[in-house]
């Protein structure tokens, strides 16, 4: 009888334990997830490798649709602003590339692995470097927060013995090939057609203003720019969420972070100069075929071999 009593107490405790322990992990359906998926939220070098290759694939696709701007000085300038930001970003393992493309579409894109695209139409509507930094930081945040990587569950391929055995049994390599190709298509769809999830955009905004402030740029740059293009909705790329809501959320995030009233660099003059050179440099059409050589000619010591 005593044993039965002890058992009953234990049974109750067991029920209590199982219902309360690990309560923190319970989102909508998280209780279905098994311990083996814990690895899916951590990233290893092989994942970065896969992500960069994946990003290159998409970047190549985007460059097939948008023409790389031949304004090398502007490319360089945008990369300098970008590098100033990425110095403070949370993913030092990535080499970011900032790419100016000739397009009348007001938009900016970033691919996993760190290829950030910005159109000349966006640049032409900016008034200072802080606005440029704001937009670039927003795109950098999509990369550092792995929005596409998570959306598509992108992972590196392991080279462990276990995974080779699994591949042998399952004959999975061909499926992986197809899955990779499909993921590229989906990523391009997210960038060009469907857009990110709303919460991803909001998160990118919030991360961007902090990143700007850390890098010495006035965090209001992103706000003033979004406000500006929010008012000129006609030519705006269709992948930005509704501006009013977005701006309100962003401003709230800024005051939460205590950066709403910070007065940091705008670099208005330097930005104007960088934009001006656009028209000044008259490129030899023959040089267009090989911008790398062109970089060497135009900016001595600027490009590495």
């Amino acid at each position, binding site marked *: 009888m005593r*044993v*039965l009593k002890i*058992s009953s107490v234990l*049974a109750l405790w*067991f029920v209590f*334990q199982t219902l309360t322990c*690990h309560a923190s992990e319970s989102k909508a359906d998280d209780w279905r997830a098994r311990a083996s998926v814990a690895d899916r939220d951590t*990233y*290893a070098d092989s994942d*970065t*490798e*896969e992500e*960069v*290759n994946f990003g*290159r*694939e998409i*970047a*190549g*696709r985007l*460059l*097939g649709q948008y023409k790389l701007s031949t304004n090398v000085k502007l490319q*360089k300038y945008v990369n*300098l602003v970008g*590098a*100033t930001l990425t*110095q*403070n970003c*949370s993913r*030092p*393992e*990535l080499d970011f*590339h900032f*790419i100016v493309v000739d397009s009348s579409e007001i938009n900016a894109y970033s691919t996993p*692995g760190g290829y950030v695209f910005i159109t000349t139409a966006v640049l032409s509507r900016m008034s200072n*470097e802080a606005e440029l930094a704001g937009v670039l930081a927003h795109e950098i945040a999509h990369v550092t927060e792995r929005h596409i990587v998570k959306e598509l569950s992108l992972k590196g*391929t392991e080279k462990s013995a276990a995974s080779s055995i699994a591949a042998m049994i399952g004959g999975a390599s061909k499926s*992986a*090939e*197809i*899955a*990779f*190709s499909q993921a*590229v298509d989906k990523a*391009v769809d997210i960038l060009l057609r469907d857009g990110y999830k709303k919460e991803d955009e909001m998160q990118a905004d919030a991360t961007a203003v*902090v*990143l700007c402030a*850390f890098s010495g740029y006035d965090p209001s740059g992103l706000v003033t720019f979004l406000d500006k293009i929010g008012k000129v909705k006609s030519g705006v790329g269709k992948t930005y969420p509704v501006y009013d809501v977005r701006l309100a959320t962003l401003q709230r995030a800024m005051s*939460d*972070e*205590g*950066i709403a009233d*910070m007065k940091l*660099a*705008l*670099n208005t003059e*330097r930005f104007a100069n960088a934009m001006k050179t656009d028209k000044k440099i008259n490129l030899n059409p023959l040089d267009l075929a090989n*911008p*790398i050589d062109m970089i060497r000619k135009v900016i001595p010591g600027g*490009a*590495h071999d």
Partner: protein
Amino acid sequence: MKIHLLHVLLIGSLVLCTAVPTIAESLYVQPFKAKIFSKPAISSDILGTVESGFQFSSTGREGSWVKLVYKGKTGFVPSVQTAKTPPLGKAAAQSGEAGPKLGARARTSSSSAVVAGMKGLTYEDRARVTKGEHSDFGALDKVDALKISPEELKQFQLEGGKP
């Protein structure tokens, strides 16, 4: 006898349930350099600067800031600059400096050969599997070739900081 069995089962289940490991909140600083602030605000005093990979145990959170003890004082790091795992190594799949020195086209396809999923696919095949959409990897190689030296960047940042 049956009761004993029940007993054993219950204790067994209990052990199973409570044995799930819980991980202590040990964090690593991610960017190349990160400042440690005295308060959870960018405008606050800076206690010091730590390098990428700096490990610490957080003593709590305040908004989007992680609290820690730094040189005997309470300090704050933005949580976006921290992660539970050490920073990863530099991505090796890049063309450019890390990769072999090959011609533009060869480099493009050699980098795609590193991609597990694309193994065995030639440059031409890729166009087929990706819906036949046009890609320009030549332009991408030009993008990869553009590098910023640390000196240039330093100079650029010194010139900045203006209204």
